[in-house]
C-alpha cells in the first residue's frame, strides 16, 4: 500500500505525457478542439466516474495520486485520446465505460473551473514564506511566465517527472533557443504554439524557465 501513492503519481503524470505523445496522431484525425459539452452534467460525471479520486474535485491534482488537470485543461483532443489509451499507470476509460458524451461533459466541466485567486489575495497563503529561497519574482512578465509554466509545463516537468527537469535549462539553451524550442518542439513534447500559447505566453514562459 505504501508504494501506491508513488506509483499513482507516476502513472497519473504519465497520463499527460501520453496525451502529448499522441498529439500528432490526434491532430491527424482532426479531433475537435473543444468538447462543447454540458459542464453541469460534466461535474456529475466527473464524480460518478471517479475522476475526482486522483485529480481532486476541482481537478487541482493530488500530489502522489494524480496531476492537476484544471484550470487550463489540456486540449480536448489530447484529453480524449489519453483517457481512452493511457500509457502510464492511469487506468483506461474505454468508450463503453465512459461514453463519449460524458467525456465531453467532463471536459466542459474542467473548462469552467476557474484559476484560483492569486495566493497573495488569500491571507492563509500569503503568510506562507519562501524560507531561504530566492525572493519571489516581481516582474509582471516573469510572473505571467510562471503562471504559464504552472499551467502548461509543470505537469510534465514538475515533481512527477515525465519530461526532463528544466532546472538549469539556461546552461543548455539560452532565451532565444528556449523560445524556438517551445514554438517548434521535437516529439514527444507537444506543440503548444500558436495555441493554446500566444507569442507573449511563449516569450514570458521562456524567460521564466531561464530563471530555474
Amino acid at each position, binding site marked *: 500500500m505504501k508504494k501506491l501513492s508513488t506509483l499513482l503519481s507516476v502513472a497519473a503524470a504519465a497520463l499527460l505525457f501520453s496525451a502529448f505523445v499522441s498529439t500528432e496522431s490526434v491532430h491527424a484525425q482532426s479531433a475537435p478542439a473543444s468538447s462543447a459539452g454540458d459542464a453541469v452534467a460534466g461535474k456529475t460525471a466527473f464524480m460518478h466516474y471517479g475522476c475526482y479520486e486522483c485529480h481532486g474535485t476541482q481537478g487541482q491534482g493530488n500530489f502522489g495520486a494524480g496531476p492537476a488537470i484544471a484550470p487550463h485543461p489540456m486540449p480536448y483532443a489530447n484529453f480524449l485520446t489519453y483517457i481512452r489509451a493511457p500509457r502510464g499507470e492511469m487506468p483506461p476509460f474505454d468508450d463503453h465505460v465512459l461514453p463519449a458524451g460524458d467525456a465531453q461533459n467532463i471536459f466542459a466541466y474542467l473548462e469552467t473551473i476557474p484559476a484560483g485567486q492569486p495566493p497573495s489575495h488569500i491571507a492563509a497563503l500569503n503568510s*506562507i514564506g519562501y524560507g531561504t529561497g530566492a525572493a519571489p519574482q516581481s516582474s509582471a512578465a516573469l510572473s505571467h511566465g510562471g503562471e504559464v509554466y504552472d499551467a502548461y509545463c509543470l505537469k510534465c516537468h514538475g515533481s512527477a*517527472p515525465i519530461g526532463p*527537469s528544466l532546472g538549469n535549462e539556461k546552461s543548455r539553451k539560452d532565451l532565444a533557443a528556449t523560445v524556438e524550442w517551445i514554438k517548434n518542439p521535437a516529439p514527444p513534447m507537444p506543440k503548444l504554439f500558436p495555441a493554446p500559447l500566444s507569442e507573449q505566453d511563449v516569450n514570458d514562459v521562456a524567460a521564466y524557465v531561464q530563471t530555474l
Partner: protein
Amino acid sequence: MGKKADKKSGVDRRSFLAGIATVGAAAVAAKPEAASAAANVPTKVMPPSVAVAAADTGSPLATTPTIDFPATDRLHVSHPGSDYMVDVVRNLPIDYIIATPGSTFRGIQESFINYGQNVHPEWITVHHEEISAAMAHGYAKVAGKPAAIIVHDDVGLQHASMAMYNAWCDRVGMLVLVGNILDASSRRPGVEWDHTAISPAEAVRGFIKYDDSPVSLDQFRESTTRGYSIMTTPPFGSCLITVDGDLAERPAEVGPLPISPYHPVRPPAADANAIEEIAKLLVAATNPVIVTSRLSRTPAGPSLLIKLAEMLQAPVIDTNDRVNMPTNHYLYQSFNRSLVGQADFVLGLEVSDLFGVLGDVVDTTIRHTITKTKPGVKVAEINSELLVGSGNYQDKQRFYPSDIPVGADAEVSMPALIDAVARNMTDARRNLNPQRAQRFKQMFTNTRMASLDAAAVGWNASPISPARLCAEVWNQIKTEDWAYVSQSTFLSNWPQRTWDFTKTYQGIGVSGGGGVGYQMPAAVGAALAHKGTGRVVVNIVGDGELLMLPGSLWTLAHHRIPLLTIVHNNRAWHQEHMHVQRMANRRDRDVSRSAIGTVITDPNVDFSYLAKAYGVYAEGPIENPDQLVPALQRAIKMVKSGHPALLDIVTQPR
C-alpha cells in the same frame, strides 16, 4: 526489603546501599519504617532494590511516598519477584509503560503501580494492545528513546503485533513485556492455558530484534538489559521479554545479583577509508544529490545535514520519514525528485528505500522496472539498514546495488564526512557554489510558488480541500512552538510543501509498514512525549484510520494529554477506492461500483459525537470552509489549556 531484615542478615548495609542507590537515577523510595513489617524474610538475603537503597542512604528520592510490605505469613507474599523486575526496568531510561490490563501480568502490574509508585515508568492505560504498540512507536520518534508496553501472551501480543510490525518497518523499537506462565503445572485450567505459549515471541519474531523468556530473576535482568541495548543500537528494533507469572508472583527467595548501571551502546560509525572515498567523489561530482529518509536520530541531524549540503550546494531529497532537512531551506528539494536524473553522484543517508527513489516498478497491467538515474551515475550510501537481517517479511524493499555501500549509522558518521569533504574541497569546486546556490534558491521558491498556486484552486470548495485545511492550520500554529504528529501521504504532502519544519520534534514521519490504525495512537504517543512542553501538537488523521482505534481518544482524555486532532474526513478508504477502480477500468467494467466496500457513508460517521463519548472536546462535522478558522482557534485554545480537542472536517479525498 526492610531494615530489620538486613540487620538480621548481617550485611554491611550502609556501604552496600551507597553503591546501589546511585544506580537508579529516578528511583522511588520505600518507607523505611513500613519495611520493618517484613518480619519473615527469605533466608538468603536479596540485594536491596534501588528504591530501598535510595531510602536507606538518605537520597532525596527517599521522600517519595512508599508502600507497606505485608506480614509474611502463608497468606501473604513479601518481596515478590516482580518488584525486582520493576527495579530492572527502572534502571533503564523508560518513562512510560503502556497497557491494556491482563491477568498474566497482574503481578508485575501491581509492582509497577505500588512498589514502583507508578513513576518512571508511569502506567498509561489504553483500550487495545494495538494502541499500546502504536503509541510506543509514535512516542519513541519524539522522545528519542523507547517506551515499554506490556501485553497478555497470545491474545494481547496478537493484538499488538500489527503495530509492532509498523514500528519494525519504521526502524523504531519498544520494550515489549509479555505475561506468560511457563510452568504448565501451575496454570489454572482454562484461560491461563489459552494465554500462554512455549515461545511467546514466535508470533512476532520476524519483526523484532531480540527476545528471551527468562526463568530466573538474574536472567530477567540480563536479558532485559541486553535487549534494551540491542534495541537502541542502530538499526533500531523492538525487544520482547517474557514476564513469567510464577517468577513475578513468588517471593524472590533466591537472591538475584545487584543491578549494574546501564550504559548505552555507541552506534556504529562508518569506516574512515569509506568516508574519505565518499568525500572525494562528492567534491569531484558536478551534480551531487543527497537522498535521506531517517538520518535524524537526534536533534543534531538537521544541522549536520545542512552543513554537508551547503558545503557542496547539493540538493537534498528527503523522503520525510523524519525531519532531516528543514523544509524551508532552499536545498530541501524533496518535490523536485527529477534532480536524481541529473545527478552524477548520489549519496544516500539512511534511506529506507533507495531503489524507490532512484527507480520504480510501474503499476501497469504488465509491470516493469524503470530507472530514474542517468547512465554512469555513482551511488554511495551510509545506511544502518544494511545491517538489518532478512526474514520472512519483505520490508527491506528492493535491492539497490550501490557502488559504495557502508553499513553504519549515518548521523554518527556525519562529522567525519563533513571534515573529509572540507579537507578535499578545492577552490575550483568552491567557486561553483554561488551559482549552484542561486539555482537551488530559485528552484525552491518556484516550487513553493507552484504549491501556493495549486492550493488556491478550489479554495472555497466544499468538501474542504486538504490544501486549504493544511494552510489554515499552519496559519494558526506557525507562531507557536508546534509539532505535527501525522503522516502526510494522504494529504498530498501539503504540510511538507508549505510548512516550515525546522526541528526534529516537529515531525514523526510515516507509519513504516502502512498498517492502517497507526495514525491515531501514534499521535497520542507522540503527544505524550510532548506533554509538558507547552507545544501545540497537531494530528491530522484520516477517518478510516481513526475508526480502527477510536479508543485512543479516551487515553488522551484520561491522561490529560493535550493534542489537537483534525479528522480528514473524506468518508472513504480512499486509497483502496482508487485501487478497486483501477481494476474495474482495466477489466472494462463499471467503475462507479468501486465504491462498494471502499466508502464510509450511509451513515456518515459523526466524529464529534465519537470524541465527546470518550471525554474529548469536539466540534463538527464542518463542511463550510468559512467555519474552519474559528473552529481551529477554539480547539487550539482548548489544547493550550492542557486538554485534547477534535475537529471533524469533511474533506476532499487527498
